[in-house]
Structures are given as structure tokens and as C-alpha cells.
């Protein structure tokens, strides 16, 4: 048990602090939600990137499908009432995991950068398929605000968009963290570690690499889908393909994971915190010029901590009594 509990302590502390800060005043909830989006995104991607060492540039497609899943639930099954949200999450899981299995079965045969970039093809191909055959509203996407209002009434809709959706992201992030700890300490974790370190050596030691890679891929994709469903569709109330298939989110997610330290538990959390906070805070101080400061800061941090901030901390606490808490 301690194996699972100890590493969760810093996670719980970070999450609780964020939650308390967010709830302490009306003005702090959305900034916290903004940061939380990046934390959750980093954690979801870390399950795949951090665990297997594979990069998926088309990762945003899973968020996109998750957000479409939720939007489709609203546009096609609005008669379900409150259950429509649950259905939305179920659809998000189904759609993102199906895509991950398809991509996994086809593209995970490719190694390294070939895989990374082939997935861009999947993402872009999917986007232009949606636009090209006018699937799910085509380029005009789906707007669910009015459906939400019809089902829940105006006040509850706003409450869902400005609070419940954010809490969902919190919960998703927390579950992702817990699952990460569980995986790291389980057979799957050992298998993924072996695959990440040396795939051929892992194979000749009996590790069915493809199976574990697809497992990690699908899990990561499901979390991405859930994030898309809540942080995009429920929160922002619309889905436009141009926005949701935007590769920038993948690059941001990779940046967050690398900022914090790939493969560590607290890394994506720290990465998301640093990235989200820098962007939010600098925007309030220097509106219009924040990126001019954020970008060099990112470069600076990575040149000083090439293994990520938590990767560095992890190394520092090795063989100290904190070792068990930072994984």
C-alpha cells in the first residue's frame, strides 16, 4: 500500500492547494481551471509519452474526438436530460479509445519519429475528413449552448460550464495521477519501462511490447478524450474542427511534460503549473507581450533542466528519505 500512498502525497498536496486557492475567491477559480487544463493534459500525455517514450504529435485528435463525443451526445440525445452528460463522457471514451486502437494497431508498428509524425497525418487527415464530407456539422462544427439551456435551464448551464466542467477536469487529472502511480508499480509499469528503455531487449525477455504500448496509448487517449469532453465541449459549449484539431495543443502538452520531466508522476503537474501560470500571470501584467517573455523562459528552463524540473528534483532526492515520495 505504501508504495501507492507515498508518491501520491505530493500530488494530493498540489491538487488540494490548487483546489483551495481556486475556491478561496471567485476571481481565482478560472485561472486555476486554466492551469488545471494544462496539468491534466500533461498527465494524460505522460501516460503514453512518459511511459513508453513514444511521441504522438497527433495526440490532439483524441481531445477532439472526446469533445465531439460530448457534443454529439447533446445534439442527438438531448432528450436524456441530465444523463446526457454521462452519455457524453461514455461517447468520448468510446470514440477516443476506438481511434487510439486503430492508430495503435496501424501506426505503433512505426518507430520513433516516424510514428510521431505519422500521427500528424492521422490528426490532419481526420480533420479534413470531418470538414470534407461535412461530418458532424463539417467545418461549422457543433454549438451546444442552446441545447444545454433547454435541458438544464440557463443558470445550471452556466454553472456546468463555469464550475462543474472544471471540477471534472480536476477529477480526471486526479484519477490520471492515481492510475499513473498504480501503473508504475504494476506489471504494466515494468513492461512499459522495459519497452521505453530498450524495446528489443524487452521483447526477448517475454514482454509483449505491442500489447503494452497499445494499452498505454488507449489509456492516455481516453483521458485526453475526457479532457476534451469537459474542458472544451462542456466548458466552452461549442466544437469547431479548426479549433479542436489544432496541433499546437499537442506541442504544448509535450512542452509541459518535458518541462516537468517525462515519465515522472509529479513532472506533468509541475510542468502544467509552470506553463499555465506563466502564461496567465504574464498575460495579466503584459497583455499582448506575454509570449515574448514566456517563450525565452521556456528555452531557459529547458537548457538548465534538460530532464525537466521534477526530473532534476528526482535525481537530487535519490538516496534521501524523500526518495519514496517523488517518483
Amino acid at each position: 500500500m505504501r508504495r501507492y500512498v507515498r508518491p501520491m502525497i505530493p500530488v494530493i498536496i498540489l491538487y488540494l492547494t490548487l483546489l483551495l486557492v481556486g475556491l478561496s475567491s471567485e476571481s481565482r477559480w478560472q485561472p486555476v481551471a486554466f492551469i488545471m487544463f494544462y496539468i491534466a493534459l500533461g498527465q494524460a500525455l505522460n501516460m503514453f509519452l512518459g511511459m513508453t517514450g513514444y511521441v504522438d504529435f497527433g495526440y490532439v485528435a483524441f481531445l477532439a474526438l472526446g469533445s465531439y463525443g460530448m457534443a454529439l451526445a447533446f445534439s442527438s440525445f438531448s432528450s436524456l436530460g441530465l444523463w446526457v452528460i454521462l452519455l457524453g463522457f461514455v461517447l468520448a471514451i468510446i470514440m477516443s479509445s476506438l481511434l487510439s486502437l486503430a492508430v495503435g494497431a496501424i501506426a505503433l508498428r512505426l518507430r520513433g519519429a516516424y510514428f510521431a509524425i505519422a500521427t500528424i497525418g492521422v490528426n490532419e487527415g481526420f480533420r479534413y475528413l470531418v470538414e470534407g464530407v461535412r461530418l458532424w456539422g463539417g467545418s461549422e462544427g457543433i454549438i451546444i449552448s442552446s441545447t444545454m439551456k433547454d435541458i438544464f435551464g440557463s443558470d445550471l448551464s452556466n454553472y456546468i460550464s463555469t464550475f462543474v466542467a472544471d471540477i471534472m477536469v480536476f477529477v480526471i487529472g486526479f484519477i490520471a495521477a492515481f492510475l499513473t502511480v498504480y501503473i508504475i508499480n504494476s506489471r504494466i509499469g515494468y513492461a512499459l519501462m522495459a519497452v521505453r528503455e530498450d524495446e528489443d531487449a524487452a521483447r526477448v525477455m517475454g514482454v509483449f511490447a505491442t500489447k503494452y504500448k497499445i494499452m498505454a496509448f488507449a489509456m492516455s487517449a481516453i483521458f485526453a478524450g475526457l479532457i476534451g469532453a469537459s474542458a472544451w465541449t462542456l466548458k466552452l459549449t461549442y466544437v469547431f474542427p479548426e479549433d479542436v484539431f489544432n496541433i499546437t495543443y499537442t506541442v504544448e502538452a509535450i512542452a509541459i511534460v518535458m518541462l516537468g520531466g517525462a515519465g515522472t508522476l509529479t513532472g506533468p503537474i509541475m510542468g502544467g503549473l509552470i506553463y499555465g501560470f506563466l502564461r496567465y500571470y504574464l498575460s495579466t501584467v503584459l497583455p499582448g507581450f506575454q509570449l515574448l517573455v514566456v517563450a525565452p523562459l521556456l528555452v531557459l528552463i529547458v537548457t538548465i533542466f534538460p530532464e525537466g524540473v521534477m526530473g532534476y528534483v528526482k535525481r537530487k532526492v535519490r538516496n534521501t528519505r524523500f526518495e519514496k515520495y517523488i517518483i
Partner: protein
Amino acid sequence: MPLLELDGVSKRFGGLIAVNDVSLKIEKGESFGIVGPNGSGKTTLFNLISGIYRPDSGRIFFDGQEITELPPYRRAQLGIGRSFQIPRPFKGATVRENVAVGALFGTLSGKIDVDSALEIADHYIEVVGLHEKRNDEAERLTAVEKKLLELARALAMKPKLLLLDEVVAGMNPKDVDRVVDLIKRVKEEEEIAVVAMVEHVIPAVMKFAERIMVMHEGRKMVEGPTLEVLMMDEVAMVYFGESKLPGE
């Protein structure tokens, strides 16, 4: 029934034939040596047996079952363990974790949980004598320690057949003796067939192997009891060039 049987196995890369029509039988619990100069196809042969490559022609049987088309992880679970010429430990993981991977995935005998796998790992780490380093990261081990780690990792798979690729290369004579003794001991204790592959004929290995095969340019040149083979003139000609006797 032999433990491992190769039946006319060939593998080519582009125009180059790396392994050319090799047939071989290895019995349960046997010690077998494969000798051949660099580029003679030994490593390719190992990769064919462990499943990293599929043969272009020929068939491979293991323990009464054809494994020609099986993926590497299935072969590993059936009982084929191996080491690499240049050790390939999981660098970022500790010695314990490295060995535990073998215990967790290398057998068919049901799922083992992580805790028991770590216990098995501790046992084999003890066996190879790395217990003081068990919590160190693998990349911080010395070259010899990395070879021992690979050995422990393979043993934790409870293999029936252990393929050792240049396991004593680059070691000083003291280490060589220690490792050969170790292999002999675990071989007896665990009834493992060991196939050791060496480039240079090292007396210790020659003493250890009951039979050897000499490979040359992808072909099996001769096979037989160790001493007999080494006495053959043609072996000396091809393998040792002008010189005569192995291992001075």
C-alpha cells in the same frame, strides 16, 4: 527429442547471406559452444533463435513445438533466454527492477505479482553476486557488472535454454573463471541448456562446452565434441589462419 532444433535455416540481408542453411540440434541441459570469427553469422543465428529476425527459409523447433513464426516474446515465455553481445540493460531502472522484468514476463507459468517478482529478482541478483548494487541504476554499473546483470535477468526468466552472446568478452581471466563457474553452477542447479557463443576460443569456455560448432561465412563448418573439433586441421586453417593450437 532435442530441446532446440534448427532445420536448414537461412537469413539474408539484401545480397548478403548472413546465415546459410544451418541445421543444429541441442539437447536438454546440454552445454554447447558456437565459435566463429566476427561476421560469421553467430549473432544473426541468435537473433533467429530468439525471434528478433524471422528466417527466410528453414524451420525452428523448440521443446517439441515449431517456433519459426513466433514473435520474440512468445519464445521467451517458452523458455529461451538470452544476453546481448553489448549488454542492453534498462538503463534508467535499478538492478532489481531490471531482473524483475525477466521474472514477470519471462515465463508461461501464470502471472506473477510484482512483489514475488522482486523476490525472485533478489535471489538471482544474489546468485550472480550483485546484491550490493541491487538498488543502483543499471547505467552506473561497470561493463562486467552489466554482463552479470544480463545473466541474472535471463536466469530470472527460468529459461530452458540460455543463449549467451560473448558473455566473457573483455573480461580479465579472474572474472572469466568466476563467470564460467557461475554458469556451470546454475546450469546444474536449474537444468538449463546453455549455448555460448564466442569469437575467440577461450580455454575456460572450451572446457565448459561439451560440444561446439564452428561457423564460417554464415555456414556451419563442423560440429562435434569440443576436443575433436578443435583438433581438426581445417578448423585451424579457417579459423586460426596459420597458427595451430587454440588458446595459449
